[in-house]
């Protein structure tokens, strides 16, 4: 019911969701932009770390996510 494969699918979907957030259209609107002025003094608050985490995921994981998505799509197509 709550197996390892399900966990992999869920993390893949969540990472996809984080990766497709647009910087200027969405994050800047709600004040979670990367280069906002409020971050310069305070790199250790929860919000700053969360913003760092999101931007890191978006920068680093885009290309591996493409590969992982292709693998999962092929797997789902072939094996149903």
């Amino acid at each position: 019911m709550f197996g390892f494969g399900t966990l992999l699918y869920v993390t893949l979907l969540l990472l996809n969701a984080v990766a497709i957030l647009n910087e200027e259209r969405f994050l800047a609107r709600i004040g979670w932009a990367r280069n906002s002025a409020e971050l310069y003094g305070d790199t250790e608050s929860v919000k700053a770390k969360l913003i760092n985490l999101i931007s890191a995921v978006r920068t680093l994981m885009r290309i591996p996510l493409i590969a992982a998505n292709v693998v999962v799509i092929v797997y789902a197509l072939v094996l149903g």
Partner: protein
Amino acid sequence: MSHFQGQMGGQSQNPPMRGAFSPISAEQQQQFAYNNNYGAQQQQQQQGQFQRQMSPQHAYPQQQPHQQFVAQPVPLANQSNPYGMFAQNLQNNQAAQLGMQFAGNAMNAMQENVQQNVERYVSMRQLKHYFDVSNIYVLSKLRMLVFPWMQKSWHRYAERDQTGQVVGYKSPREDTNSPDLYIPVMALVSYIIAIGLIIGRLGVFHPEDLGYTASSALGVIVFEVLLIKMFCYLLNVGSELQFLDIVAMSGYKFVTTIFVVVFRPWAPWWVSWSAFFYFGFALAFFMIRSLKDALIPESSSVTGVNVHRKRRIHFLFVIAVIQLLYIWILIQYKSTTT
């Protein structure tokens, strides 16, 4: 070589152990005759150390006709080597010995290579620290998990080197409060087997149910470790809480889950629910007390780091209460009669 002198002096050898390679008795007697004769010659030839691949030994077997090589003398016979008959064939063949040496070197090289590669991901020395347990430790840890209020002190003792510097925590053998990985591994396997037993008792067992249970249990562990790791990153929890510590803490829930899951099929509903809540809260209490020192330092000892004290207390509370959810997930086994 005292054993070798004994062979010469007594002329009475113990027969080799009858293993898979022991010959039939006629050949064995022939071999003993050869052995006694060969012993005399060998004593004169080998003054020094006794080695398996020694060149003076080669001169003798080459005189023997090829079909008698089974009955050749066995210097290792009186060491009760059951594979003595097998090994001597390799001794006398030079190419085989070269092959054996090469294979030995290749094995060593491969082993070192694997060791280095594994060392990069998982530190073996750290793993050994977590498996360094004793019986008393296991019993008292289990008692701590089931009756956590009986434990008086939850403080972890720090390991100090010669100069008094703190280099880590004491191993589980010396410190009952230190987390280990032996109990979680054993509890995980016992949990999988217990679920298998219960499903079998209900008559609906399939072998792949064991795989499903294992996958589910591993999924819970991975999810919890990832969650705690993410919270640690967000709240600036640094090296106080190691990765393997988190895995160990996450694995302790299987001990209580076993206790809960054995009640479910055969007890009335109120017994199983009260067991669930009792063991759930016991586990929550255990987690809170164990992680308190690591996550919530006293205010005097932390400098320069934004501690988020209130957030950490909330985080600890969330970790503890979510254990109940994990136990609930883990006791859902597939059966027709729930």
